[in-house]
């Protein structure tokens, strides 16, 4: 891309990023299929990085406000670490089952891929159920987001992560329907790879949440 546009065209002409290659033939060149997605995959990756900044800012807020209990409950009073461990494992399992789905996708095993995606969705759903139960529990204890600065930043940080997992799960269901209807087309494969990045990324954010919010909060 360093060639001057005014100069003679490089060999083979200019090549710009194309999201949908109009000359792409289905089934042709299967091996390189995923490496054609420069535009979409890179764009989605940059979206993830911007999402990462959102979470980074929420983590910074929690770092600043996380010990301002306003004479209210502290993390040690509220958090049940054993349940957090369970939901952490739900997310970890969902990450590896999604990985298996991607491997099956690359081998064009649609049925096995869909089964692994369904398992992933179930683990994701179990994580969300645990989270909703925890939020309900906190709410009933009077530890809503308005109780203290610590709880405000806790609810916004963990809530934003939960919202992302919810969106990811809805996306997963939609993708399953699309694969069921259209089969493992080129477009569907690309969508599955995007959701794969999203899903693993959410698991990565959760590492920060359980280390920083839960484990550190309870230790302090």
């Amino acid at each position: 891309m360093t060639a001057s546009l005014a100069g003679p065209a490089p060999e083979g002409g200019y090549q710009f990023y194309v999201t949908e290659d109009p000359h792409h033939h289905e089934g042709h060149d299967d091996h390189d299929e995923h490496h054609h997605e420069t535009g979409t995959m890179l764009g989605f990756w940059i979206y993830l990085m911007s999402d990462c900044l959102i979470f980074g800012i929420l983590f910074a807020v929690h770092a600043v406000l996380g010990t301002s209990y306003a004479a209210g409950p502290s993390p040690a009073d509220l958090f049940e670490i054993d349940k957090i461990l369970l939901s952490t494992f739900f997310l970890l399992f969902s990450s590896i089952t999604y990985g298996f789905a991607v491997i099956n996708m690359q081998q064009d095993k649609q049925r096995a891929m869909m089964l692994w995606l369904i398992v992933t969705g179930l683990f994701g759903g179990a994580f969300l159920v645990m989270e909703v139960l925890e939020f309900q529990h906190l709410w009933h204890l009077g530890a809503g987001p308005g109780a203290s600065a610590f709880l405000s930043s806790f609810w916004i940080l963990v809530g934003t992560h939960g919202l992302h997992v919810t969106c990811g799960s809805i996306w997963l269901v939609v993708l399953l329907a699309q694969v069921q209807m259209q089969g493992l087309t080129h477009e569907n494969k690309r969508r599955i790879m995007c959701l794969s990045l999203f899903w693993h990324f959410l698991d990565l954010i959760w590492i920060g949440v359980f280390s920083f919010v839960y484990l550190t909060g309870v230790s302090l």
Partner: protein
Amino acid sequence: MSAQQHGHDSHGSYKSYIIGFVLSVSLTVVPFWIVMADVEVSLSIALLIIFGLGAIQILVHVHYFLHVTVGAEDGWQAMSLVFTAILLVIILAGSIWVMVHLHENMMPAHEQIERVRNLP
């Protein structure tokens, strides 16, 4: 422009996913064990272990699950990741540093509190 990268295993194999999973599980269990079993370590050591293992686990996820490689997308993937990491360090370190100092300076001194308390 590289749209064609013959990166083998660029999206992983069963083996690499399982290695990543096993590493993640152990890196998750250790900090939880330290907190749940009330292991006798000082707070700073406990925090060091929690954050250290958390950081390692994030790297494990980036490598084994997100498959970030220096070569992918002409290097733009790794480049944007490093850029984001730098921004995060600035945001986190900066906010914490500023706010901790602010907090300290806003904290009323002991004698001030006493003076207010003894007001008629």
